[in-house]
């Protein structure tokens, strides 16, 4: 087995410092938005008593789901013994931690009483999936940190059994984590858009896609930063294949979810809302989630892999574009799922029309406010800043063949 050499980022380009400064600035702006929302209350957001989870939750759940998926590469290396992925396992682990930290930060900062975080950490209702998730999330951070230790500590790394054991543990844990995140919605008996066990596997498939897309983009950015070919053509081809499979898996679970609902007359209303009559939600579902997020990336990657397609787009470029599109589609998927699912009214009297001063029976209004969007973006920036700083202070990146340009 070839010896893998790792490196810290030390020869910094304008790109590196520029990105770091941009993310730091976005985090500051996001924190300002949090102070503004906490001072005035959620009245300054677009959220209301019908759409109680808004844009911050879209970003938070997206990042948490992606965090689990970011561990793909490490899992493939340790659990499935694919040595070609091993050089990227460290980056995979640190990115998973960073994305989860970003997502959790957004989730916590959007609480009505964020200063009561200590209450949430010390007072539990063990019947709540939210409580389970607190353990799943903190456990994930600890387990992945231990996993990284087994990969990076010289003494421990000599014995691959430790890394393998930690890798297996992290692999099982990440599946549990995403199952828990999907079940936050799947366990809601009253919400027609969610109430289904398929939410858990759907979220797992989505995590594979978004996590790998993040990993690919960070790796390609680092190729530019280090001026090294960190990803050889074989790896580009492998990532291309994986992204296609993951995009098709998300598509499959999405189809099954909606087909099942369409079969049951009681769910026709909510299905028609999402698939046909829901305005922005319908557009985001078809254009954002399905076309931009799944079909185009899969098509593009398939094209780039074919002999005829290579003349039009290189695999590397297709991988970049497909990853960006998959992440945009992921945000659309979360928006439709989280906000669209709440916008559709609760059925207090199935088959009857209901009206009230509380807007019962009506499609709920929701428009994201600027502070919400800024908080959500700050979450992404927290993840990216942690990753950038981590790559600078510790050797998470493999060394690659240098290239010019």
């Amino acid at each position, binding site marked *: 087995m070839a010896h893998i050499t790792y490196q810290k980022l030390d020869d910094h380009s304008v790109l590196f410092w520029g990105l770091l400064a941009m993310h730091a600035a976005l985090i500051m702006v996001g924190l300002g938005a949090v102070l503004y929302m906490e001072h005035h209350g*959620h009245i300054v957001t677009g959220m209301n008593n*019908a759409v109680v*989870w808004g844009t911050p939750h879209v970003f938070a759940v997206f990042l948490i789901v992606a965090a689990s998926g970011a561990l793909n590469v490490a899992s493939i290396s340790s659990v499935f013994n694919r040595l070609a992925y091993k050089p990227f396992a460290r980056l995979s682990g640190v990115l998973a931690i960073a994305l989860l930290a970003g997502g959790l930060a957004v989730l916590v900062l959007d609480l009505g009483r964020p200063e009561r975080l200590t209450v949430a950490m010390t*007072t539990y209702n063990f*019947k709540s999936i939210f409580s389970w998730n607190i353990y799943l999330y903190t456990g994930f951070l600890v387990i992945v940190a231990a996993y990284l230790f087994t990969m990076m500590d010289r003494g421990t790394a000599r014995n691959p059994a430790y890394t393998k054991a930690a890798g297996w543990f992290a692999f099982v844990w990440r599946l549990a984590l995403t199952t828990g995140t999907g079940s936050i919605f799947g366990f*809601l*008996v009253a919400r027609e858009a969610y109430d289904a066990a398929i939410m858990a596997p759907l979220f797992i498939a989505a995590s594979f896609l978004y996590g790998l897309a993040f990993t690919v983009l960070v790796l390609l950015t680092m190729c530019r930063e280090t001026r090294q070919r960190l990803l050889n053509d074989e790896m580009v081809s492998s990532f291309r294949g994986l992204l296609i499979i993951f995009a098709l898996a998300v598509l499959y679970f999405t189809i099954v979810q909606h087909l099942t609902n369409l079969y049951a007359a009681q769910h026709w209303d909510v299905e028609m809302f999402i698939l046909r009559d829901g305005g922005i939600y319908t557009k985001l579902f078809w254009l954002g989630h399905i076309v931009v997020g799944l079909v185009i990336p899969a098509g593009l990657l398939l094209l780039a892999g074919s002999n005829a397609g290579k003349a039009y787009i290189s695999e590397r470029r297709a991988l970049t574009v497909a990853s960006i599109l998959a992440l945009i589609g992921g945000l659309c998927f979360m928006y439709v799922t989280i906000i669209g699912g709440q916008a559709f009214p*609760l059925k*207090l009297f199935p088959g009857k029309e209901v*009206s009230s001063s509380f807007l019962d029976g009506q499609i709920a209004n929701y428009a994201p406010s600027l502070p919400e969007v800024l908080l959500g973006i700050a979450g992404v920036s927290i993840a990216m800043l942690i990753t950038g700083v981590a790559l600078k202070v510790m050797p998470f990146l493999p060394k690659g063949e240098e290239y010019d340009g």
Partner: protein
Amino acid sequence: MSCSSFEERSAKNGGGCGSGCGCASGGASLQSDEIAPISAARRFFLKSASAFATMALAPGVTLMAYAESTPANARPADQKVSAKNRWGLLIDAGKCQDGCSSCVTACSTENGWATPTRPETDAQWIRKLTVRDPKNGSQFSLPMMCQHCANPPCVDVCPTGASFKRADGIVLVDRHICIGCRYCMMACPYKARSFVHEPLQDQKEYAPRGKGCVESCTMCVHRVDSGRTPACVEACTKTGNNAMIFGDLNDPNSEIAKRVATYRTTRIRDDLGTDPGVYYQNI
């Protein structure tokens, strides 16, 4: 004898109230010309002391008087809430008038949530629903509030246990440990909960509310514990509609239990298995 009669008695006894209160009794040995300034000081001291005593004791005395005036079925403060009771409501939609919202007004006044002007963000602990059958146009109206479920989804999902169900079936939010995650609002099938979107003023001491916390109908727990009926039920009775009955569903001799046993009643979204404590008739 109280210290208030000190001045009269000091004139006779030369100081001290003589009532055994220990307020001051050493004045007898003093010369008469020395008495005046000391009396003034004592007067000041005693006035202050009596004012302090009044302030300290009055609330207790008031509470005792209040307790004495409460109905016999009030739960003593030292007695735990019991699962022997299951407080509930029976609402007769046939008697609930279309334009009437006295229950809503009474709840708003009692619990200190303002009449909503912004339907999307203002709290509504109770609201009037109009339900229409699109097939034949028939319609009815009814009040909708927390259904005080025996299997409340809001309690199940709450991460901190802030949403909780008392042994007697009343579902409440502990404002001290609510972190404002709103998961309970996602879980409630009845849209019964509101989030406090902005700072509040003029709250009722028995119905604490707070920005960033979730709240809902408490079934007027403060009234129930003192043996009274919820404000909405009282207001409905006052209008003469008598569409709402409050009582103990577990007590076979209560009016609510008898009527639930006698008439065909419905519970909203009973199919979800939440076992609501609010029953509806004629819907």
